[in-house]
């Protein structure tokens, strides 16, 4: 069968992606550009047709563009989102043929051999493609040819008439051969402007003068050298299921079924070098009601002997009703977990701890198992950060320049008689207990961090004193000079 390849080129993919979600009237005539920071300058990355009409072009400085065109609208470019959008389009393209590949960062390739008749022939397919893309407000140029090179050349340099014989291609400029800009320039310098000029020359001298690349591209375009389209792989699916001829309801049976599913799922995860982070076990009952058991793991895991006991608690709570006739196990969230060589030094003793965190997390929530991390602040409440232990590793050096209390509480006023002075009172009441001061060390002045608004620090500066009372307890008091008062905020050992 004759091989047919469609090449689709999206000349303005980044700006189309941004503009198609805006109301139509605003972007049909308003100039719009996407900007990107290149070599410390904001440059125009992509622009729409209205902006091009105003004389703007890609790669020009953004401030220049704004001065030429004061009503210019702009937005920073997001190349990651562009690439994702292209992959979405590739997935859409599978409606035309199963072999869809991504070509660079602004094109798609379809191997449509044998599937054109489903759309009423090649013309019908191309019309369908154009209509759908136009409805989605995406600028596209489409070429069809016998080879990947020919389709690419027609998409980028041809007019929209879709003839793809050698004669048509021969009229295209040299750049349509996908040669680099330097080679293109040197070919033009010797007067070779069109592909037909190149065809008439002896091959040996072309290869000697311009390298083998030009001839390779030429042969690929004309179909004398094969070139493949590598289709995108489907994202691996981490889900397995098992259907029973008769409904089951006993705990042991469900666990045995889960164990079998887990074996298969872990084999799948292992093949992809992934580890499950969130697992979901769905138990379908005969009355079509679904019961779900979710397992959130403290670390990526694909060891079925370790995962299975973690399911016990959840499966215990399941109401089997009249029986369960299908089990479905899916790894909802996976993380890369590369194979590791097991050596005595790399054997992780943390496995047991991770399992414990998982078990506790399934009872009180994985984000409630926390760990302290040092933070760079003099404010006592902000001298540490708390983050879930499952998503962070133990880290950091704890350096205390001055003694800090073991226990912190929100500031509590202390009661005392007499004048409020900047020296601590000799005797005071705190939490209905009486204290007399035997030794006071201080003051240590801590200023509020003005860049972070905090209601507790509205009272301004604080002078902290370390107080040893004759009754034994060692307290951390502070005085607020801008708003004179005394408070207790912590207790030492």
């Amino acid at each position, binding site marked *: 069968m004759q091989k047919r390849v469609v090449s689709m080129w999206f000349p303005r993919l980044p700006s189309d992606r941004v503009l198609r979600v805006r109301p139509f009237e605003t972007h049909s005539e308003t100039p719009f550009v996407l900007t990107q920071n290149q070599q410390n300058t904001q440059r125009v990355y992509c622009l729409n047709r209205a902006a091009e009409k105003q004389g703007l072009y890609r790669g020009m400085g953004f401030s220049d563009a704004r001065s030429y065109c004061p009503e210019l609208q702009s937005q920073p470019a997001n190349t990651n989102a562009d690439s994702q959008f292209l992959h979405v389009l590739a997935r859409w393209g599978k409606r035309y043929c199963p072999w869809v590949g991504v070509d660079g960062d602004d094109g798609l390739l379809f191997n449509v051999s044998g599937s054109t008749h489903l759309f009423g022939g090649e013309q019908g397919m191309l019309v369908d493609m154009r209509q759908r893309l136009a409805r989605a407000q995406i600028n596209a140029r489409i070429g069809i040819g016998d080879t990947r090179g020919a389709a690419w050349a027609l998409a980028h340099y041809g007019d929209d008439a879709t003839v793809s014989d050698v004669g048509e291609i021969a009229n295209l400029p040299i750049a349509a051969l996908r040669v680099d800009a330097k080679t293109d320039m040197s070919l033009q310098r010797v007067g070779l402007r069109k592909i037909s000029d190149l065809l008439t020359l002896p091959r040996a001298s072309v290869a000697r003068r311009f390298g083998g690349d030009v001839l390779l591209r030429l042969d690929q375009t004309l179909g004398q050298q094969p070139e493949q389209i590598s289709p995108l792989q489907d994202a691996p699916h981490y889900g397995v299921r098992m259907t029973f001829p008769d409904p089951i309801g006993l705990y042991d049976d469900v666990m045995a079924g889960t164990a079998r599913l887990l074996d298969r799922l872990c084999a799948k995860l292992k093949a992809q070098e992934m580890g499950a982070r969130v697992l979901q076990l769905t138990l379908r009952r005969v009355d079509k009601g679904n019961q779900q058991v979710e397992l959130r793991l403290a670390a990526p895991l694909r060891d079925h002997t370790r995962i299975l006991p973690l399911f016990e608690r959840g499966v215990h709570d399941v109401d089997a009703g009249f029986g369960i006739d299908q089990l479905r196990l899916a790894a909802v969230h996976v993380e890369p977990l590369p194979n590791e060589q097991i050596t005595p030094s790399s054997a992780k003793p943390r496995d*047991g*701890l991770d*399992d*414990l*965190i998982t*078990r*506790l997390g399934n*009872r*009180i929530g994985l984000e*409630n*198992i*926390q*760990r*302290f991390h*040092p933070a760079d602040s003099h404010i*006592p409440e902000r*001298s*540490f950060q*708390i983050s879930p*232990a499952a998503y962070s590793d*133990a*880290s*950091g050096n*704890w350096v*205390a320049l001055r*003694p*800090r*209390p*073991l*226990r*912190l*509480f*929100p500031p509590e006023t202390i009661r005392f008689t007499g004048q409020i002075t900047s020296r601590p009172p000799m005797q005071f009441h705190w939490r209905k207990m009486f204290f007399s001061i*035997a*030794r006071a*060390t201080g003051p240590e002045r801590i200023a509020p961090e003005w860049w972070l608004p905090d209601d507790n620090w509205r009272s301004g500066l604080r002078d902290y004193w*370390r107080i*040893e*009372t*004759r*009754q*034994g*307890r*060692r307290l951390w008091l502070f005085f607020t000079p801008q708003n004179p008062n005394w408070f207790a905020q*912590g*207790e*030492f*050992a």
Partner: protein
Amino acid sequence: MIDFNNHFPPMNARTHEVCGASALFFAFSLAARLGGTTIWVRESWRSEQINPSGFAQYFDPQNLLVAQAKNQTDVLAVGEESLRGKSVSLVVIELDQDISLTQGRRLQLAAQAGNTTGLCLIPDGMGSNAAQTRWRCSPIFDETGGVADSTLQNWSIIKNKSGTLTAWNVNWDAKTRRINVVSPTAQR
């Protein structure tokens, strides 16, 4: 005193209780003495909290996990699970209500099953009869030393299932990073 080392660290694979104003210091010095990972179970609504930059000189905060439970039932469940888990060396459980004999005994059995030490921080005058020992730790004003960060305190065993009740005056030796027993003659 010599017999302090027979009592501290308290018996492994049992749960113990500690009360008094210096209970936190007791917990951290015990965690430092046992080594390994410590899990600290508390109720999330409590506004008082432990301060890592304060206890870092006694015990490395990297080895501490904090479990925030929403009520005391969850606290006890998490405590029991961690005691049974065999992967931590100390489980500190902050309690603010009385626990029954059954609950205390369950913790005790879990500690035995997991070969882990459990420590309940209890308010004064509470506690369960199932605990192996109960300690009261209260700070003492250090008249003799003029040092800025004195940690002198009185540790007394006020309940002991297998032994006598005793008391020591101790402080923290920052250089050797361990508990020092202060001789009673140092007192007036």
